[in-house]
């Protein structure tokens, strides 16, 4: 396990390092002044510009420049936005909170709905409900998020008037932004209308969470069903039945733990898909998160923000994938054995 962990962590570090090299070189490929692209300081602000040029080693070789870049980057100095002149890293943290809140809730919802429905379908294999569940999941899986989101907005917000369509909270509730996660921020605030604000926040939250959860949820459903069916055909299940164990006991003690193994392996992939969907969802729902921030920075050609957003997204995805892989290897020793046997 230690060897495996080290290998994964080394891979993570190498990937992150390559990412910084990529980001560093982007500054040269973007149009305009390289130092401005990197720090967000315009040449018209000559004093700060000179100071930045010095700090970034712009009078020495490209390797020194890269090392300085790495130094600044790792210490949280990601430059300032070209449009707002605010510190990119400080701006990023609450947005990360907003994105994490959405993605964690969506992931939870996907698991809560996807896995049991997959189980259910597997139990009813080839029955009517199996076909219904699988049919619905396949069609839901093939609907693109941007379209689904608009459709649900039209239905739930415009036609039925159940939910608002944008943002985290009715802005008239004056809640200070600390973590960026609206639920945590409300709980931490001392606003006299806390419970009303919380209800309003949940009211804003459920639609984007459902939109986001549908893709990973349906994936989970199909994976769970297939892997259940596979496990159900194993000899040890037949043996358990022959020994007269109850159906429920077989299901929860023998089928489920084994069936979950391929499901866990796919969680990382699901998270990556969720992340690309979250960008679209955040834009549609005006959600103050990394995704909408990144898209906006592309429109505005705000290169320091663009880099910060890219790096944050890539790191998040890599990190979650490594954690999932580590958990998978730790939880299912047979996977580890397969891995070692190859070498």
């Amino acid at each position, binding site marked *: 396990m230690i060897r495996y962990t080290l290998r994964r962590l080394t891979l993570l570090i190498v990937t992150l390092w390559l990412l910084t090299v990529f980001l560093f070189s982007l500054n040269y490929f973007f149009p305009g002044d390289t130092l401005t692209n990197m720090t967000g300081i315009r040449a018209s602000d000559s004093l700060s510009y000179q100071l930045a040029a010095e700090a970034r080693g712009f009078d020495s070789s490209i390797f020194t420049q890269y090392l300085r870049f790495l130094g600044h980057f790792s210490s949280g100095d990601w430059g300032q936005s070209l449009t707002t002149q605010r510190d990119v890293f400080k701006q990023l943290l609450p947005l990360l909170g907003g994105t994490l809140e959405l993605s964690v809730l969506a992931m939870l919802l996907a698991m*809560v*709905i996807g896995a049991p*429905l997959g189980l259910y379908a597997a139990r009813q294999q080839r029955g009517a409900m199996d076909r219904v569940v699988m049919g619905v999941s396949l069609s839901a899986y093939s609907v693109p998020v941007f379209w689904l989101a608009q459709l649900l907005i039209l239905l739930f917000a*415009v036609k039925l008037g159940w939910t608002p369509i*944008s*943002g985290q909270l009715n802005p*008239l509730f004056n809640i200070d932004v600390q973590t960026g996660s609206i639920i945590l921020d409300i709980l931490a605030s001392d606003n006299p209308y806390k419970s009303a604000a919380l*209800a309003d926040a949940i009211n804003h939250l459920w639609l984007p969470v459902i939109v986001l959860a549908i893709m990973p949820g349906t994936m989970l459903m199909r994976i769970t069903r297939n892997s259940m069916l596979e496990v159900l055909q194993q000899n040890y299940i037949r043996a358990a039945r022959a020994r007269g164990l109850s159906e429920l006991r077989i299901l929860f003690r023998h089928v489920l733990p084994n069936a979950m193994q391929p499901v866990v392996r796919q969680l990382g992939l699901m998270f990556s898909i969720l992340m690309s969907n979250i960008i679209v969802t955040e834009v549609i729902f005006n959600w*103050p998160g990394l995704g909408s921030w990144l898209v906006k920075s592309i429109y*505005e050609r705000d290169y320091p923000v663009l880099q910060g957003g890219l790096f944050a997204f890539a790191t998040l995805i890599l990190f979650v994938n490594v954690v999932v892989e580590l958990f998978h290897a730790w939880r299912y020793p047979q996977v580890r054995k397969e891995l070692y046997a190859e070498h």
Partner: protein
Amino acid sequence: MNIWRFWLLAPIVTLAACTPSDEEVAPLQEGLVYCSEGNPESFNPQLGTSGTTIDATSAQIYDRLLDYDDEQQAFVPALAESWHALDGGKRYRFMLRPKVQFHDTSWFSPSRTLNADDVVFSFNRWLNKQHPYHEVNGGNYPFFTASGLNRLISKVEAVNGTTVDFYLRRSDSSFLANLATDFAVILSAEYGAELLAQGQPEQIDKRPIGTGPFIFKDFRKDLIIRYQRHADYWRTPARMKQLVYSITPNANKRMLKLLTGECDVIPYPLVDELAKLDTADNIKIASTVNPNIAFWAFNTEHPPFDNVLVRRALASAINRSAIIQTIYNDNAKLATGVLPETSWAYSPVDQTYGYDPERAKALLEQAGLGDGFEFDIWAMPVQRAYNPNAQKMAELIQADLAQIGVRANIVTYEWNAFRRRLVRNEHDSVLIGWIADNADPDNFFRPLLGCSALNVGTNRANWCEPEFDDLLMQAIAEADNDQRTKLYQEVESYVYREAPLVPIANSMRFQAYRSDIHGVEVPAYGGVSFRHAYRDAEPDTTEAKR
């Protein structure tokens, strides 16, 4: 198997728990959400000309020395209680109102009320190049440069604590009109000095302090601007305790948010959808006559637009009536010149080019471009009162130009980036417009086509003709309105001959709001004001009877 049922039910139960409750919560009753169309460039209108910035700042955070009352067509006292001209119109004396409180916020507590120093500070900031704040946050004061105010005023002097004198280089009929615009706001000199001592003068335009009816609280780019009522306001304080601008650039989304009640007021609703909105009981549409002009400006420094024949050719090649039909849904008038009908110097003589593709072709032939050419049309990414859909307008123009063999590419950027690039004159031609800041006809010419407006970001045609400028100066120096009207006709025909821009339309400015909201004011000259806005105690009942 009960367990399955539970899992199927869980999401439905969660959903049911989340449906909104109907009971009213105090902050929602006492606040108003305005879904604005974009981010302000800063929180000081002196620094910009964009309508978005004006809407977010002037009438909310600040006050002016005097205001223009559109109904009475007269200047009314604001921070100045009275004023009079001295020395044959070359000196104006303003008597200030006593006991005007500045905003008291977490970052600044005023120790005194408004006095003459504040007025001198606010004007010297853009007037005096040696002023410590002149270069702060860019040092560009486009309105004052374009209107020539910076060359008109020779100095501003405090006579005593409540009296200020403005010395003019010559008498000027548009002086008071310019002071009554949304740009001539009064800042706090004390706040300025305090920030200077702290070494962060740039904060003056980011965390503003003014005397206006609302106190700035918080701004999150692309999300919200939050204001709070100024309880010690010198006029009757605003009725709403809280005012929030929810930034929503997408016009469709703005309308949906109005329908769902997330916005109480929206500017620039989509014209095509207006009819649909009007039928909804809980939504009202208001329109105000807006002194504006939508035009298509050629960058006269970029070939081939340095050739007047090419400009005339393109002006004759587009079918403006079709554009008005499609884009404005007949909510606009075909422009007959640069001045709109609302201006007193307007004359109904048509000073524009009719739709005549044959003539356009002939003109291009004459200019040696018979085979056509390729260029860019820049189209605004946002809706403005004068143009609800510049992208679509660009497409129509593109199609018209294809008929005479000219290929147009449509270019657009995010609004603030768009304006920045325009100032750098990167465009070949641009679809944009102008909303008058005051009732003086001069406001349509010097800012748009005067030499002083070059490089400040209002002269989109990048056009400077000394002879034309002389004509404009002549028109300002004239005090008699009939004479001035005649002079502005000459100005119009000059623009017609040279065609640096093609006037397209004069339109109404629309707002849509929930029917329980009243008192939102959109003056003809200037930005939206929420000072008198209030919400019915019981939503959606009283208004229906009126």
